[in-house]
Every structure is written in C-alpha cells, then in structure tokens.
C-alpha cells in the first residue's frame, strides 16, 4: 500500500523537516568535534608542557605563529562546539518557549563574547608582548 504523503513536494525538496533547520546543526556539531580531536589534543599537550611555567614561557610559546594560529582555531572550535551542545541541553530541559529562546540567545552571546575575549588575548600576546 502506498503511503500517503505527509509532506509537500516542496517541503521534501527543501529537506528541512519540522525544526526548519534540517541537519545543519547536526553536521556542525560533528565537523567541529573532528576539528577538536586534533586541536584539543594539541592544546592538552601544550598545557602539560607549560605546567607551572612563568608568563615569559607562555608568551614565548604564543609568539610562535603556529602556536598562535592553532590557539585561535582551538578557541573558535571550542566555543562553537560548546554553543551547539549547550543549545541542545537547553532545548531538552527548558520547556517554556520564551525562557528557552532567551536562554539560548544569552548562552550564544556569552559564548561569542568569551571566544572573542580569548582570541583577542592570544593575538595580543602573538603580536605584542
């Protein structure tokens, strides 16, 4: 027996589903996760190498272009991945629609602010002192 189509042909072509955003969030979470396997392990190893180090050693480390670029990428990926993950947690546990929306917006703004602050700090060390 043929199934009755529950979605319009245009809706099927868009492929965005009932949440109206398709699989974009899912893909972004996975791609940033793969990036963080590399960037996270690099950063963990770097932190271990600088355990108890003084400021001069950390500044010298971030003066190296490769370290600075990887640190910026790490911070960008961390906050992007965290914002995507926290959004799902909020969507699962906050049931009031307006509270859910405002919590997600606040979380996104805080994530963006922290990412910019962290990246600015890295660049300030990389370019200055």
């Amino acid at each position, binding site marked *: 027996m043929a199934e009755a189509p529950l979605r319009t042909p245009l809706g099927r072509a868009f492929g965005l589903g009932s949440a109206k955003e398709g699989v974009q969030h899912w893909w972004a979470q996975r791609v940033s996760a793969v990036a963080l396997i590399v960037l*996270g392990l690099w950063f963990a190893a770097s932190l271990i190498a600088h355990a108890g180090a003084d400021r001069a050693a950390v500044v010298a480390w971030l003066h190296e272009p490769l370290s600075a670029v990887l640190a910026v990428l790490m911070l960008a990926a961390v906050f992007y991945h965290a914002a995507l993950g926290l959004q799902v*947690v909020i969507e699962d546990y906050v049931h*009031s629609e307006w509270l859910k929306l405002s919590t997600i917006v606040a979380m996104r703004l805080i994530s963006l602010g922290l990412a910019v602050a*962290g990246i600015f700090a890295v660049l300030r060390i990389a370019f200055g002192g």
Partner: protein
Amino acid sequence: MTEAQRPLSPHLQIYKWQLTSVLSIGHRATGIALSIGTLFLVWWFIAAATSDSAFAAAQSFFGSWLGLILLLGWTLSFFFHLCNGIRHLCWDAGWGFDLRTTYASGWTVVAVSIALTLIAFIAGLVVRG
C-alpha cells in the same frame, strides 16, 4: 503564554542503571563541565596577555588544592568527552551498533579516558616539578 500540559515520558529514576545510559549522561555532563571550564581557560589566556602579576595569580590558583581538583575534573571530562565523542562519530558512520560492540566500546572509553587522565596529570606534575 499558556503552556500545554502534555504527558511526559517516564523519568530517569524508574530505569535500571546500565553502562550505555550512564555514559550517555556522562557525555552530556562532561560537556557542561568543560563549558564551565572555558571561563577559566579564557581567564588564563587574558591573564597571560595582561601582566606578570595577573598571570602569577592565575597560575597560583591552578596550583592550589582547589585548582588541582578542578584541573583533575576537567582533565577527566576532556578525555572522556573526547573518547566517547569518537565512539559517537563511529556510530554516526554506522559502525558498532550491536549490543556486544556497544558495551565493549563503552568499557574501552572508560578505561582509556581514566588512563589518559592519569598519564596527563602525572606528566603535568612532573613537568611542574
């Protein structure tokens, strides 16, 4: 706005504890813990960009008992989220869904994340001297 009072599915406490569900909750819990840790991560970068005294204050906090306990928690959270995240990526690729493999990969994640945490933490303490 009126919230619809819809029936909810049974809550967590009526289900039997099992490895699969504990690791699933653990993935979310460690993700939240790591998100909170990003506040301290940004503090560390800003302190390094600011002054010797600001960086010394940050380093002395992370070297204190409270700081070390938090670092141990974040180290375990990082390695667990990393290992279990790779397990999730394998599932996304369609691998490891049968029950035996799911449990084997689950126990592997537990063992590897604890081992990596111990190695990383001991290495950090050795480097710090």
